[in-house]
């Protein structure tokens, strides 16, 4: 705690604003997880925290550490790159598997497979 208070005012203000903005966006994304009604709607909510929230909070910690310890800490760059690269892959796979499960159950609110044979129901032993 003692180190943090050494931060000069010109650096403290952007750090605080970035932190508050990032955490507020994260909270909005997670509220979306509760309030949106369908699964496919909820699929959009975590992208808020993974794109905007992560970038803002990582920027805040980069500024804070660059001013406090007088060296650039690049771990944040790694975290941002990693989260931005991996979240789409997770959500894509999750969306695909949800679509697959809904089709197997014969749900009517998902689009049918465009052409080709129907999904082969006999091979599934779940």
């Amino acid at each position, binding site marked *: 705690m003692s180190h943090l208070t050494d931060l000069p005012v010109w650096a403290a203000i952007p750090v605080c604003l970035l932190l508050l903005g990032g955490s507020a966006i994260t909270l909005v994304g997670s509220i979306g*997880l509760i309030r949106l009604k369908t699964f496919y709607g909820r699929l959009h909510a975590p992208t808020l925290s993974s794109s905007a929230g992560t970038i803002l*909070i990582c920027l805040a910690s980069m500024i804070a550490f660059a001013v406090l310890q007088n060296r650039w800490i690049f771990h944040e760059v790694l975290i941002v790159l990693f989260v931005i690269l991996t979240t789409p892959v997770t959500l894509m*796979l999750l969306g695909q598997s949800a679509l697959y499960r809904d089709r197997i159950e014969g749900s009517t609110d998902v689009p049918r497979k465009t052409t080709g044979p129907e999904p082969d129901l006999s091979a599934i032993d779940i």
Partner: protein
Amino acid sequence: MNELFIIWSILVSQILIGLAMACALFRIVRGPRAQDRILGLDALYINAMLLLLTFGIRTANSIYFESALIIALLGFVSSIAFAKFLMRGEVIE
């Protein structure tokens, strides 16, 4: 004045991220289906990583970044494995 401001803003942002984690936890508990729970778990991972980052700023200690990086990695791998399991019924084909 300055110290008070920055300490309070870090505290407020930690509380906000904590509330976000509670929302994700609600989705995990509530369901209604398996894919909803996995989505909630993924959001919980990302929020936990952000919470660790704010702890890192608060204590000015860079050891928190290592754990944040590890949480990001493990969260990605586990969500992929869960999604794969939902689709095929097994993880490694």
